[in-house]
Each structure stands twice: as C-alpha cells, then as structure tokens.
C-alpha cells in the first residue's frame, strides 16, 4: 500500500511539470497584448508600456520567465505575483478560497445526497410514475446550461418582487459580522447557486447510478443471492448497491478540480465570490502567474482526487489491492 502511494506521488511530479509547461505555452500563444490596451488612456504612452513590461519581466525570453517562476516555487514556495494587483498570487487566491471551498463542498454534498438515493430509487422502480418524473427532470437538468437556469431563476425572483438575485448576501450583510440575521440572509441567497450548480450534477450522477444498479441487478450473483432466499433489503444494499457504487467513487475523485474551474459562467452570472470568475478575468488580462497558479492547483487537485478515489476503491472493494 505504501509503495503504491509513494509511486503515485513520484509519478505526479513529472506530470505536473509537463502540465505547467503546456499551460505556460498556451498562455504565451494567446494573441493580444494586454498592456497595449491601456494605450487608450491619455496617461499611457508606448514608453510606459515598455517600462511596465520590463517591471513584469516580460521583456525576458519566455523560457527564462518559466524557469524563474518554477525556481521560485521550488526554492521559496512563491507562486509569483499578479501583474494587475501587484500582490502575491497566493494571497489573492487565499482571499477567495474560503467561499469557493464552502460552495463547492456544499454543492457536492447536496448533489450526492440527492443523486445517489434518487438513482437507486429510479432503478428499482424503473416503470413507476415518480421515477419517470425524476428522469424527466434529470433530462431537463442535463439539457439546460447552468447559466440559463441561473438567469431563469433570477427572472423568477425578480418577477415575484424578491431582492436576492445574486451573490451570497444582501449588500448590507456582505461585510457584516456573523449573526443569525446574516445566516438567514445567506440561506435566502444560497438556494439559487445550489440549484444552478447542483442540478446538472444531480441529473448526470442520478442517471449513472441508475444505469450501474440496473446493470448489477441483472447479474448472476444477484440472482443467486435472491435464490438463496436473502431478504430483498440485503440483496439490494449489501450485494447490488455496494457493487454498483464503485464507478461512482472514481467519478467523485474527478470532481475535486471542479472546485476551481467548473461553473465559471454560472458564477459570473450569479456574481458568486469564488475563484472561477477570478480565473476567467485573469485569463482575459493575461495575468500569467495567476493563471498558472490556478491551473496548476486545478491539475494538482485532479491528481489528489484520483489518488483518493483509488484509495477509497481499495477500501470499498475487496477485489482491488495495490500490492
């Protein structure tokens, strides 16, 4: 087990290096110089632009920029600084991490807590009315882009005279200290992002779980279990669901990087204080070290997620052993 873990970590290092190289190349290939766009401001002359480029180190060869960035991470744990904010990337990410993790964890938990039971239910009662209704909602959830759902919900709230149309708080509570009123205000806002972010996830997870379970329910060993005279409850939960849920664990590992990169558009539309819109803006502004740091973080989380999923699989499935 420990050798497996060590191996995986050792493999992760060159992979991350390769990804960082790729990401850096992609940023460099992006057309347009963000500094030149400042020229419309009467204060800015081409000489100023050249000087700022030099301040950022952008006048150095690309490979030197890359190696310098890498060196600072390895030696000082410094992920570079944001051109636009003149501050360290890590402090900027840190400022936004809290709400991002909160929202992501909450929506992931909600998604799974709803999707898995629904998947099981629709698999068992595949011809029932409720199951068909759940399937229909699932189809709609998959077919509708999340930002559209967000816009529809905003329109709905507006037409009913509500005022919680984006963000996580009403303006007066954003910088207020925690209180029951603030918590209540947040709950009044939270349901929109949860539906928007969660709906698509619920729909796809539910369908996945349903398909897996139907598959397993048709297996010989389930028939054997039934013919042994086991209670249907035991057949279902001990034999069928436990086997059907294995692929879901792998899926869960893949969803970890969603913390950063998923739901960017929905977050912009809903004005959520998360990292997604920050990444998007940094991409537009070619704020290269911010983009690098965020995409690397995303890649890192994908690997960690995969590793965790593999470990969880080994724990859940006695057939899998990494020796």
């Amino acid at each position, binding site marked *: 087990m420990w050798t497996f873990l060590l191996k995986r970590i050792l493999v992760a290092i060159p992979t991350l290096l390769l990804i960082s190289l790729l990401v850096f190349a992609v940023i460099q290939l992006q*057309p*347009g*110089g*963000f500094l*030149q*766009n*400042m*020229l*419309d*401001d*009467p*204060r*800015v*002359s*081409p*000489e*100023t632009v*050249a*000087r*700022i480029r030099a*301040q950022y180190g952008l006048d150095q060869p690309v490979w030197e920029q890359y190696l310098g960035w890498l060196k600072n991470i390895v030696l000082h744990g410094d992920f570079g600084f944001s051109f*636009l*904010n*003149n*501050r360290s990337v890590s*402090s*900027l990410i840190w*400022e*936004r991490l809290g709400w991002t993790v909160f929202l992501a964890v909450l929506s992931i938990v909600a998604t799974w807590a709803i999707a898995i039971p629904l998947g099981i239910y629709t698999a068992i009662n595949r011809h029932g009315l409720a199951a068909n209704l759940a399937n229909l909602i699932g189809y709609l959830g998959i077919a509708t882009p999340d930002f559209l759902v967000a*816009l529809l919900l*905003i329109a709905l*709230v*507006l037409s009913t005279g*509500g*005022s*919680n*149309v*984006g*963000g996580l708080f*009403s*303006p007066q509570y*954003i*910088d207020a200290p925690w209180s029951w009123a603030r918590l209540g205000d947040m709950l009044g806002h939270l349901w929109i992002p949860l539906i928007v972010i969660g709906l698509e996830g619920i729909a796809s997870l539910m369908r996945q779980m349903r398909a897996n379970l139907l598959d397993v329910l048709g297996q010989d060993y389930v028939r054997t279990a039934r013919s042994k005279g086991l209670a249907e409850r035991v057949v279902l939960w001990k034999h069928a669901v436990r086997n059907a849920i294995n692929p879901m664990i792998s899926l869960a590992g893949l969803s970890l990087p969603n913390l950063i990169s998923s739901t960017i558009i929905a977050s*912009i*539309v*809903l*004005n959520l*204080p998360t990292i997604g*819109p*920050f990444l998007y*803006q940094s991409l*537009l*502004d070619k704020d290269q070290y911010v983009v690098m740091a965020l995409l690397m973080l995303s890649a890192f989380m994908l690997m960690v997620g995969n590793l965790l999923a593999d470990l969880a699989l080994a724990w859940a499935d006695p057939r899998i052993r990494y020796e």
Partner: protein
Amino acid sequence: MRKILWLLVVTLLGGLALAQPKTISGYDSLGVVNGKPGGSLTLALSSAPQTFFYYGAIDSASEALANQLFDGLIEYNLKNYQIEPALAVSWSITNGGKVYTFKLRKGVKWSDGQDLSADDVVFTYTQAVANPEAKGGDSENLAGVKVEKLDASTVRFTLPKVAPAFIQYMRLPIMPKHKLLAFSQEGGKPAAEINNAWPTSVDPKEVVGTGPFRLVSYTPGQKVTLERNPTYWKKDATGTTLPYLDRLEYLIIPDSQAQVAQFLAGNIGQLNITGTDFPTLKQREVSGAPIKVVQFRALFGSPPHLAFNYDAKNPELAKLFRDTDFRLAMQFAVNRKRIIDDVYNSLAELPGNGMAPISEWYYNTTKLLSNYDLKAANAALDKLGLKKGADGIRLLPSGKPLEFTLTYGSNSSTFSAIATILQSDFKAIGVKADLQGILAANLLSTGRSKDWETILLALGDQPDPELRTPIWKPGGALYYWHQSTFPASEGGPPQFKNFFPWEKEIYDLWDKAASTTNFTERKALYDRWQAIFARQAMVIMIAKANSVGAVSTKYGNYIYDLGVIPGYYPVPLMFQR
C-alpha cells in the same frame, strides 16, 4: 494647562476663520436641489479594484474609487466642463503659458486630520505622476516640468515649453505625502516601489484622502465600503457640508446583466447602462417601477469608428484603402441612422470627427459625413473601376473579388450589431466583408498589429484635443490605420515620406496648435483639422452614444457620472429622499 487650552482655542478659531469652503451651486438646470444629509447609496463596480493607490495601476475600478477619496487641484463644472477651483483656490498662468502658480485652499484637511499643504502637491507630481515607473503615472506629459513649493500654500509648475492642455493634468488626485513617503524615491526607495503603495490588502485607515468619502473596508471581490468625510471642503447653497450621504458602497459585479438584475431588485441605487439595456428599464419605469432612466449628451465616452488598414498586407487592398474616393464611397453605405435607431435605441447622435458634438472644440461636420445612399455608393465604386463579377461581388484589378475581413469586438452587443449592419450594406454594394470577432479587450492591440484589414474600434473622447494627440496626429502611437507613418525608431520623428499631403497638413496644424495657448487660435486650427478628417474620411466615424443612467427614485440630484474621469464629481450632491 490653561495656556495650552487657550492656544488650542485660538488655533481652532484661526483655522475656522481661514477655512475656505467651496460652495456648490448653479446646477438648477440639471435638476439639482438642496438635499438632506444622511442615507446611503450603493453603486456597482465592473471589476475588483487592483489597488487603492491611483498611480499604481491603470484600472477603472481604482479610478472610480479614487474619485470619491481624493481631489485634484482643479475640477470640472458639472454642466459645461469648464475648469473650476478645487484644492487650488486660484491660479495664474504667466510667462507666455509656461509658468503655472497655484494657491491652495486654506483649511483643507486629510481624512486623518493632517493639513493639506504644498508639500503634498509637490510630492504627488514629482514622486507619483512624473515617476516613469509608476504604472498609473503620466511621466511623458510631465517630462521636464519643474514643480516647486513657494510657501506652505503655493505651488509653481515651470514647463520646458508651452503645453496648451497642461491645465487638464491638474485634475489628477493629490496624495498625502505623510502616508506615502515610505514608498517613494524621496523616501529612499527604488522608483518602482511606488506601485506597492496601498495594495487592496492595506489597512483602510492608511488610505487617507481629501475627498468627500473615506475608505472603511474592502471585502475581496465583493464590496467596497466608504463613509462620509465629515471635514470635506464643499458646501451646498445653504451652507450644509457635502456630501449628503453617510455611506457609499460599491458592489463588485462583473456581469452587466447581473448589474441590471441587482438594480431592479433594489440592491443598487444607480447604474450606468447602455442603449441595449434601455428598452427593458424604460419599460419598467413607464409601468411604474420606482426608477428613473435619464440620458445626457456625453463629452467623454468612446464613439466607434470603422478604419481601413492603409498598410494592409494585401497590396491591392492597401492601395484601395489609401484612396480617399474609396473610403468616401464606402461611407455612403454606412447607415448611421439605422445604427443610431436600432443599435443605440435612438440614444446616440451623429458623431463628431475626433471631438464630441457637445465639446467646445467641436466643428460641425455633419454635412460632410454624407447620408446613407447605396446608389451613390455603387456609382462611386463603379467610377473607381471596380466592376461587379458574376456573383455580384466587385472585382479588384487583378480579377480577385473585393473581399476583406472586418474585425470587431464579439463580446460587445453594440459592436456585433454594428458589424452585422455594415456587412449587409456592404454586400448590397458588391463588397464582401468577412466578420472576424475578437474579444473587445483585444481590439486596440489588434489594431496596432498588422493582422487586420478593416476594424471597428472605439477610442475615448477627451475635453481637449491636445490630450488625444497620439490618436489624431499622423505618426502618433495610436494612428494605427496608417502604420507606415510610425517613427522608424522609437522616439524618433514620424516617417514623413509616407504621409499623404492631407496628413502633412494635419500634422502641421497640430504642431501649431500645440505651441499656443490662445483659445481662438487653437480652435481655428482644430476646426480645420476636423474638416479635413471628415472630407478625407480618414476613418469613418459611426455614432456618438449618449450617456444613459438609471437611478432609483429614492435618490435626488442624480447627474450621470462615468466614474473614471478625474475632476468630474457629481456624487457628493446626491441625497436619499
């Protein structure tokens, strides 16, 4: 002890007697009335501020905040953009326009209680504005200018040569020396260190200004909160100290649709909108929602133009694009009326040529802009020998079809709509334009590259043409449609050999206008330039949008505020009913 108390009283009284508040009045025609103190207002910012130090970045959010936190030596009249005293109570211009002497207003205090002094002004201009490493500085325009303190309340600027628009740079916000010295060269730091002053993680108490509001808190990526500066130096006609509002809050909302939603939900008190949002909001106003949609003719703002690349890579196209007759022919196919009606919802006017129609510098070129007339366009193109081919597309002399790319900002609803209208009208006269959408933020850098044939671009209008020299004076850094006039080496003279005679004439007009401060003389020279601009259709101006804003009826004294213009400060007049 008693002595000290007496001293204190005398100083206080002396301070009061010396204070020179500015009374804001005379805006009745803008609907301004005497307001009532108290209340709060929430506005929107389209992006998170990058810094709280104005000279540390070119950033619209930082600029909008700086306008509430700081003041310049002078400011604009809100009605006619004439220059008025602000932190400077008076000034004189002597020595043929080369020496500017400013007397500071007495009794102005920084929000931490310190007195404003000439040292602050000298510090701001020498350490920030003229600092070539300051990202939001203006070192080129302050090059060679000597800034001196004559006494505690007098500052003198000595210019190396006459600069007629110099007074415009005196709108820039004055910064507190006692808070920023540690980041400056004067304080022993490298020049670039000034950019590190007041990052967004700074303690709000450090951000000290003379403006109507002061910083209370910043929640990263979400909200900036300001509160009333009780010692502000402006009063209304009845003697009430401005601003009226106790609190001013900014919500950071990048998406314009989300801004509109927040406004309709009552979470934002006032919003600057575009013609595209106008119908929805106006309809709500008419049906009784507690909002008001207001429009103002705009001095600032960026009117779009259509530019042809005189140096297009395809030599045949370049030859055509350089031909004034061709550009004039194409102008016949520009349906300005339809664009104004459909794209701007009639909230726009015919454009000026380089100056906004509301500007005192504007020369009326509407007769030279030509009306939409496809027949005339066809006739003019026929005359140029561009015969139509079998598929209705005109042919170049080489027999290839007359086809070019039209680059526009695809994430701007205005630009996309204009590009589509142009494309369909061009098609009707046998000219094939292939739309090429790019991010609006990348338009200028694309225009300054060689990779375009025609482009739809917008550059900002300014109150004095001199401020836009890099755009309109041939060979300037933003004279991007004729790049072969760019200096051969950086900082060198333009390549005169590639000038057209009319470009040389414009060049000379601008040279002459920059060497005199006489308004009448300058006006005559710039009039002539605008006429040539229009006659040559140097670039084809499309339309000048009005400024449109929506405000909740809870608030009074609303005057449109672009937010990023130093010297234009209407917010202190707003009040909550």
